[in-house]
């Protein structure tokens, strides 16, 4: 037996070295895996900081900017007419709610259009990339009930039959009165993959002086063609119950 090992010394060294290379390969694979995955979660977290900042800024800017009573946004380095009356979007929303709190539609169509125009102007530089939903809903409402005071959906409509590439994608605005309060969670979240949200709280008062707390929010997602949005764009019946707002982009240009 001893003679056998003495005769096979070189083969034993070879097997040792093969074991060595196997261990090295395992270590190398581990290191490589670490190198690939290191920092991914931190990067995702930092990106989420950015997207959360972006949506929060968008929501704040919507509430800050001055608009005329007919919904025209003031632009920098422009001269305005002395007859133009400037206001805030929220002033109009509060007026509408105070006057129409007993009616079914509490935010009138002109104010809904003004909201859409403001959204368009604030997010104009990013218009080709994103779709979004702006809403004001009753806070603490019963799950499943219709709690939306107003919901404006901004979607891209993809028209494959269009010959002009510039007209293949158009921006459409919709005023929606969803049947249920969870339509965003039910239809938008699962469809668009990643979605950034920002919320705030506002108080709206009736003429009688009774005030209620409302949630104001915006959801922004990377524009894509998904079934539920295509249905809305086609005018099909969905749980969003949307009406197209005409001339938003045309009017402000």
């Amino acid at each position: 037996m001893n003679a056998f090992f003495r005769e096979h010394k070189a083969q034993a060294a070879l097997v040792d070295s093969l074991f060595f290379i196997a261990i090295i390969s395992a270590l190398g694979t581990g290191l490589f895996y670490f190198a690939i995955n290191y920092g991914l979660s931190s990067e995702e977290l930092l990106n989420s900081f950015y997207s959360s900042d972006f949506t929060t800024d968008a929501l704040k800017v919507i509430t800050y900017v001055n608009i005329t009573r007919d919904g025209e946004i003031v632009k920098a380095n422009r001269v305005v007419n002395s007859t133009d009356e400037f206001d805030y979007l929220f002033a109009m929303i509060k007026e509408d709610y105070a006057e129409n709190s007993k009616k079914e539609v509490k935010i009138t169509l002109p104010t809904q259009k003004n909201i859409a125009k403001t959204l368009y102007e604030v997010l104009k530089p990013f218009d080709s990339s994103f779709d979004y939903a702006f809403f004001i809903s009753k806070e603490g409402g019963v799950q499943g009930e219709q709690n939306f005071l107003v919901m404006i959906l901004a979607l891209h409509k993809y028209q494959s039959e269009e010959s002009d590439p510039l007209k293949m994608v158009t921006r459409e605005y919709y005023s929606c009165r969803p049947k249920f309060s969870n339509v965003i969670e039910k239809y938008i979240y699962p469809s668009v993959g990643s979605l950034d949200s920002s919320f705030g709280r506002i108080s709206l008062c009736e003429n009688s002086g009774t005030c209620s707390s409302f949630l104001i929010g915006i959801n922004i997602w990377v524009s894509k063609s998904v079934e539920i949005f295509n249905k809305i764009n086609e005018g099909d019946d969905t749980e969003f119950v949307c009406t197209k707002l005409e001339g938003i982009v045309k009017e402000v240009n």
Partner: protein
Amino acid sequence: MLSRKGFIGPIGDDLPSLIPIVTGLVIFFSVFVLTLNTYNEKNVFLERQMDMTTVARDIKGDSLILNWSQFNHRCNEMKLRRYPYSFMIAIYNNEVDVTKVIDEFKGLNLDDYDSIISSENEFSFLGQKTDEGNKNFFCSYLRVGGREFSENKRQYTVRFYPIAVQQPIGVNTSNVNATQFLIVPAVMAMVVWE
């Protein structure tokens, strides 16, 4: 004599086992160096992102810039912190084509900082009339030993934020030149590089 059968020599005998050992060591150190480089690069990238988020938040404040002086004051405060990265921040009106912002940044020479913030027509930044003349909403910081962005061959990070800016807007009346301070939508662009 029997046990020395096939004996070549000390090296010759061990050569077959030396080859996998050397190969293994080469593989290990290659992967190790690659991992170390990736680790360092990602750390730099993450730190840059973190600094960028902090600087952007501090400059934006509550997403509302009231006037150029306020913006300039915030910018000067940033410069005192001595970041390990260089950055440029500019505010544009909401008509800006965000795809062209980097080209404009690349054309800037930060040695002419005063002329960049005072130029009325050369750049597409948002400006504001102040007591000292027209001032552009532009802020830059070049780290110690840092190179201009135009010379930057390495990675950079760019971010955009919606922002509101209060602007003096001329009111068109028949007899009087009036000015109203109104809040307009704008875009803050920021680029960070090493």
